Structure formats: structure tokens, C-alpha cells
């Protein structure tokens, strides 16, 4: 099958080769201007020397990467020992983004399933309702969340009033607050791709599984999930990647302790304390990491699809 598709493609490319080159030009232009050029700029900047009031001096330097990975002591003259500060920030970011992704999946999957199983007429309405909060600016949403979660906020008022707790829950300035913030920021990116694949799912397959003595849970695990896996993976990537680089939620909800990569990079370009090459280097390391994760996922998915014929 794969061979057939490939030969069909090459036959077409012979016929339309010239037209295709021209027609793809706008796409290449967009990719070059908006993706390749900025990444190239960042790559170049990460190897330049920092200027103290922001900006760069055009002199090649590995200082940014050295600062990221090497601890050279108080005076910067010792041999390179592993610098854990930034690696820890990266690790915390991955952990936070991962937790937010799992939270989004746990809430988003049933939501998407619910919408996809409504009558066809009302599905667009449900999708619309899901996206309404996202018409409000992310900053305002995140600040509002802080007000909801804070010690004297409505959430704690409610819990105290109902007598469920005696002291207000301290949520703001914890890791959990950041996870909640990230989850809320990117939930639709989880719901929509899963919704799209559940909507295409042939529900007779679930009936067939039940007919063959599978419980509801087994049907979900062995039949529904494998069928909608591409949507789930797409949703996870769409939540994980922006969460990883996010700085609003960690800044506003996490406080100083719960610093994430996004904030680290943001600070390097803000005000006089900035260090552009170091910011660029951190961004490059983040980009590389995300690419590696995506490659692993893509390879896994390709293998799964090859297995499914």
C-alpha cells in the first residue's frame, strides 16, 4: 500500500512539477519569514557577546551556553562543574507542563467525548461554549484566576462557608496553582483535536466490543482510545509545548519560587538586567528539547500507523 501511494505521488510530481514549485512559493515565503528567519536569528544571537544594557556585541562567544551548563564558582575562574540552577528550572518546567497536560487530558477527553456524542445539531454550540472564555485576553484570564484562587477569593469563601475546610487553602504561589493556570490556558487545544477524532469514530466499534463481552472500561482502553489516539497525541502536544514556554501563569500564580523557562527567557529580554545571548541560548535549548520530544512522538505514531496498515 505504501509503495502504491509513493509511486502515485512521483507520477504526479513528474506532470505538475513546475506548477507545484510556483504554487508552493507562498508557503515557503511564510515559513522562511515567520519560522526559519527568527530561529536563525535566535541561533546567531545565542553565540554573540552580551551588551550590559540589553542588546548584543557582534563578537562570537560561547558564554551564554557556558553560563547555562557550567558552574565556574563565585569569581568565574574555576573549571566547569555542572550548573544545576537552569537545569532545575527546565526540569520543573517539564514537570509543570506535563502535569498541566495530564490534567487537560483527564478533563478534556470526557468533555470532547461528551460533545462528540451530542446530537449533530447542537455540537457546534457546545464547541462554541468551550471557546467563549478564550475570547478574553490570556493575561486577564490568568489574573482573574488568581483572584478566584487566592486565600480570600470566592473558591475559599465557598469552601469555608460550606464548612468543608476550616482554614483557607493556600493555592496561589504553589506548583498546583501554576498547573491549574496552564491547564485553563490551553484546555481548548486539548478538547478540539480529541473532539474531531471522536466525532469521526465509528461507534459501532464500541457496540462490537460490548457484544464481544468487553466491559465499558476495556472498550475505552482497547477500542476507543487506539482509534482516537492521533487526536489525543495532537491535543497533548498542543497543550504541552506552549505550557513549557509559558511565563504568564508561572509569574502570576506561581510566585518567585516556581520559576519556569518562559519566565527565565522573558527576563533576559526585559529591562536592564537582560542578557540577550543567554535568553537566546535558553530558547534554543528549549526548542531543541521540544523538537526531540516531537520527533519521538512522531516516530511512535508513524510506527503505530504502519502497524495499522
Amino acid at each position, binding site marked *: *500500500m505504501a509503495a502504491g501511494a509513493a509511486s502515485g505521488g512521483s507520477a504526479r510530481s513528474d506532470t505538475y512539477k513546475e506548477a507545484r514549485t510556483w504554487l508552493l512559493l507562498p508557503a515557503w515565503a511564510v515559513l522562511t519569514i515567520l519560522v526559519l528567519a527568527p530561529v536563525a536569528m535566535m541561533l546567531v544571537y545565542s553565540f554573540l557577546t552580551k551588551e550590559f544594557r540589553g542588546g548584543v556585541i557582534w563578537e562570537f562567544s560561547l558564554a551564554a551556553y557556558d553560563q547555562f551548563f557550567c558552574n565556574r564558582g563565585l569569581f568565574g575562574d574555576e573549571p566547569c562543574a555542572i550548573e544545576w540552577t537552569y537545569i532545575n528550572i527546565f526540569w520543573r518546567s517539564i514537570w509543570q507542563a506535563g502535569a498541566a497536560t495530564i490534567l487537560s487530558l483527564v478533563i478534556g477527553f470526557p468533555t470532547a467525548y461528551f460533545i462528540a456524542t451530542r446530537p449533530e445539531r447542537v455540537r457546534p454550540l457546545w464547541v462554541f461554549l468551550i471557546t467563549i472564555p478564550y475570547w478574553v485576553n490570556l493575561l486577564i484570564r490568568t489574573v482573574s484566576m488568581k483572584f478566584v484562587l487566592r486565600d480570600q477569593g470566592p473558591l475559599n469563601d465557598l469552601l469555608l462557608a460550606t464548612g468543608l475546610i476550616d482554614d483557607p487553602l493556600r493555592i496561589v504561589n504553589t506548583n498546583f496553582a501554576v498547573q491549574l493556570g496552564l491547564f485553563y490556558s490551553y484546555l481548548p487545544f486539548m478538547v478540539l483535536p480529541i473532539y474531531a477524532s471522536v466525532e469521526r469514530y*465509528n461507534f*459501532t*466499534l464500541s*457496540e*462490537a*466490543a*460490548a*457484544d*464481544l*463481552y*468487553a*466491559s465499558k472500561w*476495556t472498550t475505552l482502553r*482497547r*477500542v476507543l482510545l*487506539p*482509534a482516537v489516539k492521533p487526536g489525543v497525541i495532537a491535543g497533548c502536544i498542543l497543550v504541552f509545548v506552549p505550557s513549557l514556554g509559558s511565563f504568564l501563569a508561572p509569574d502570576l500564580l506561581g510566585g518567585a519560587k516556581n520559576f519556569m523557562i518562559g519566565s527565565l527567557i522573558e527576563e533576559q529580554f526585559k529591562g536592564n538586567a537582560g542578557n540577550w545571548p543567554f535568553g537566546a541560548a535558553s530558547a534554543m535549548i528549549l526548542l531543541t528539547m521540544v523538537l526531540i520530544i516531537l520527533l519521538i512522538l512522531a516516530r511512535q505514531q508513524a510506527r*503505530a500507523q504502519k*502497524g*495499522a*496498515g
Partner: protein
Amino acid sequence: MGNTASAADTVAVSIDHVTKRYGTFTALRDISLTIADNEFFTLLGPSGCGKTTLLRMIAGFEDVTEGEIYLFGDEIETLPPNKRPVNTVFQNYALFPHMSVTDNVAFGLEMLGRSKAEARARAGEMLELVQLSRFADRQPSQLSGGQQQRVALARALAPQPKVLLLDEPLSALDLKLRQAMRYELKALQRETGITFIFVTHDQEEALTMSDRIAVMSDGRLQQLGAARDIYEAPHNVFVADFIGETNLLEVSVNEVKDDRATCDLGGGYILSCDAVEGIGQGAHVHMSIRPERLFLSDGPTEAQSLEGTVRDNIFVGTDIQTIVALREGPDITVRSSNSDRGNARIFEPGRAVHVNMEAGAARLLVD
């Protein structure tokens, strides 16, 4: 399986005054019927008649609004589909696309708690039964429609259900394959001894395979009987018209005497036929006469006959249909087989003929 009961009168499925309503729409009205063990039972009717709904109720995919369904004497209404010892062959097969053929067939057994090895061994046997051993490691998408159909069959048969439900399983296949599969299904049913409940809208399919047929229309059971009886002795206009081809003639009953009814077709034609319960003197009803039970002659024969004029001959391969116009009456169709014997009875258009009726060919129908 342990159940070796082969007595023909063991009841496999009993449908007891079952009604199904969706809001204000009634899909099934007070259906009662019993299906014997080892029977090839067919639910036949046009689309929307409720036959698939009834099948899905037996499988457990639809709730019963009123009435009860029993499986070998046990009420099954409260059991979810995965607790009912029945399996289904779905209309579009519903094979699990991400599993190999073997894994599809082994799925039910695994769910029943058999070891993976045992399930796979049994799946292998089932694939042999449907002659698909060569394709055991393929994915469903790599198979043709007919092969997928067999996988679906093997998958549904593998757990050795007490009853196999088949929802229009042949409708997606092309004609030749469909015809071949009819015999295979029938043979498979005899071989396995499993009760088959088969849903179709194709009367030919129903007639060729079934021990008994339930003809349904508009949510009601129209007639229940052996294939032959349904065809030869349709109970009402719907059944006569839906199954096979027939001449439907409006008649008024002049007299009922000694189990014979004398019927007036208009235009001075009088025919006598077996009386039917519920149709008395003066009734205006329909009469069904199968075209193949009629034959043409130049003059009167010993049989009852109607005089008319040949309008046209239509060649339909196995048969030749002759349309005869009756005076003041409707046209009547006569079927002769396309054989030397049948061709000897071909009459040219315009010729005056007698349309003769075999004994018992005319049936009175209730409306």
C-alpha cells in the same frame, strides 16, 4: 459448548409482547414470536420496518419499552450487551481497525477470560473454518469486503454464542459474492448448530437460507412461517406483494361454501379458490396469483381459466413474462420458464389466449 440439546423444539429466543417507542414514534408494536434452537430464523422487511431494532434489542443495544425477551428461558432485559451470550455480525462488519485479523477474532475469547494462547488457537480454528488462515496476520484494511465479512463471522462465532445475530451482513457485498455467501452461511449454521437470527430486506436471501421467516412491516409482524409457506400462502397484501412477484387482483366474494370461495374479478370473470378465515360473502378483497402458477393455451383446458389477449412478451433470462390483457379487467402476468417446454407456450402479441391457473394458485388476502 456443553449445551448439546438438539431437540428442535427447545426455544432459543422468546419475544413476548415487545413494544418499542422512541418518544411518540412506535418502532415495534406488540411483537410476539419464538425462535427455536438450531434454527435459521430471518426477520424480513423493508427498511424502517423495525427488524434491526428487534435484533438490537436481543443484542442489548436498545431498551425494551414494553414486554420481555427471554434467552433459553432467562429474562435478559436487565443484562448489558457484554453479559449476553449472543454475538452479532454487524452490517458494516465493525472490525477493530488497529488489530490484526487474529486479534479481532480472539478478542471475544480474551474478554471471556481465556488465556491469550488459547484465544489465539481458537481464533486460528475459526479462521480455518471461514478459509482465511492465510490472512491471519493482516490488518482488516488490507482485506476485501468479502474477506472482512468472513472475519466478522469468525469473530462472532469464536466465543461460541448460543445465538448469532446477523444484521444485513451481506448487503455491502456485490451480487455474485452475496449469492455464494448465502450457501456458506447456511452451511455454517448447520455445521455449528448455532441459532442464527438473520435480518435482511432481501426476500430472495430470506427464502434461500431460512428455516422460518418473520415478515415485518411498519413495526408489526405481518406473517410468520416456513419460507415455502410464506411464499405460497401469503396472509395479506403486504406479504404477497413484498415476497416474490405476484398478480394482485381486486375481487368481490360472491359465495363461500364448503371451504371454497367464488370470486368475481369484474368483466364477467369468475374464479373459485380456497376460502380464507375472516373473508366472507360480499367482501371486497385482493387475490394473489403467482405468475409462475399460470400457463397459457389456445383453448380451454381442465384448469380454471380467463380469456384475454396477449399484450407483450418480456425476456428476463431464466423466464419469459407474458402480459395478458383481460377484457375490462387488469393486465395479468404469466411466467414461463425459458426452456423448450416453456418456450412451446409462447404466444405472439395480439393473439387471443386462455390464461389457465394451477389448482391452489389463487389466494385470497386480508388487507
